């Protein structure tokens, strides 16, 4: 399967039906999830209606970590095994992950003001997620500034691997240090501490985000492959033109 996908043309043939299907599923899930989150789920015993921000915030934070992990793993695959689609996957994932991270930071901030009493706090969780956002920006900047794309891929891969150290720090920050941010409610050894009527919209939104990521990353990968093919054609044409001039 993975080696089948190594051929970009076969990849494009596979993507053509899958991408719009993922986009449609994501939109349906998001519509159902948002309705459930905003209208059909109960207010929280402490937070009241503000709990509804959680349904947008928590899955966005998961996606922020997930997208970075995808970048790190596919960067390593591209760096070590030279899989032709690996660095395309990593590059295409970066802006999507950056948007999810920004969404998590923004929704966290508007939740923090009424609940904590502060828009922002320099605690370990918030700071490490802000660093994650800057890692995304730095990763994207490398692709933009390094002209030679195979050099850019290698350099970006090294940066992605170094930044991967931050991912476990983000997850465990609330356990390792005193922090203002609450500890994990879902991914904890004793099971979730969220009522079932609140878990349902949370997971719907998480599925909507995940399928939405799938649709976006496939579209971005397709565009990147087309852009690379175009660049190759331009290079060939340029070389032909210069040999004609020499005559």
């Amino acid at each position, binding site marked *: 399967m993975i080696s089948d996908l190594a051929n970009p043309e076969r990849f494009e043939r596979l993507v053509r039906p899958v991408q719009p299907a993922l986009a449609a599923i994501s939109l349906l899930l998001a519509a159902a999830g948002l309705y459930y989150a905003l209208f059909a789920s109960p207010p929280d015993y402490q937070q009241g209606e503000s709990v509804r921000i959680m349904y947008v915030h928590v899955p966005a934070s998961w996606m922020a970590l997930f997208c970075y992990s995808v970048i790190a793993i596919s960067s390593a695959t591209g760096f070590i095994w030279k899989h032709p689609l690996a660095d395309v996957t990593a590059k295409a994932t970066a802006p999507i992950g950056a948007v999810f991270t920004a969404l998590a930071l923004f929704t966290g901030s508007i939740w923090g003001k009424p609940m*904590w009493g502060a828009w922002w*706090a320099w605690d370990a969780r918030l700071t490490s997620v802000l660093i994650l956002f800057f890692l995304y920006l730095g990763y994207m900047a490398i692709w933009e500034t390094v002209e030679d794309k195979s050099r850019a891929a290698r350099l970006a891969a090294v940066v992605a691997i170094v930044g991967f150290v931050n991912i476990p720090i983000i997850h465990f920050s609330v356990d390792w*240090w005193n922090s*203002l941010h609450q500890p994990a409610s879902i991914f904890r050894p004793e099971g979730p501490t969220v009522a079932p009527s609140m878990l349902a919209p949370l997971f719907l939104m998480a599925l909507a985000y995940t399928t939405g990521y799938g649709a976006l990353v496939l579209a971005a990968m397709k565009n990147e492959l087309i852009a690379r093919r175009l660049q190759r054609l331009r290079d060939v044409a340029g070389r032909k033109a210069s040999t004609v001039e020499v005559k």
Partner: protein
Amino acid sequence: MTKKQKRFAFLAGIFAAAALAVGLVLSALESAVAYFYTPSELAALDSAPKGVIRLGGLVEDGSVQYTDGKTEVQFVVTDLTARTSVRYSGALPDLFREGQGVVVEGRLAEDGGLAAMQVLAKHDENYMPRELEKALKEQGHWKDQYGK
């Protein structure tokens, strides 16, 4: 070593070095990364910290006293081992109440109390509808699970 193995070793080495460096920095900064002191940690310090500090814990039951109408408040922050009294005047967050986790920012006064400039409420990891809260309280499961 083949080229692939070399590239793998290179990347693994970089990751290990980065993890080690970050781990060392974070363990050296241990107390600086922590967002607040607990009352016990504060009591265990050799000398009282000068400047602005943050103190975290639960608002002790029955300790909240409003003076001067509703604008000034006094309460005790406890971690169930040690206690620190706090004076504050200003707006309190919605979640502030007795039994609630809070983080208080301010300066230590001569008497060991904290003159707060900001009070933040700490939210816990429990999410549930009001009906469930009521049901748990009626069945008497509330105290042992949630401590409030």
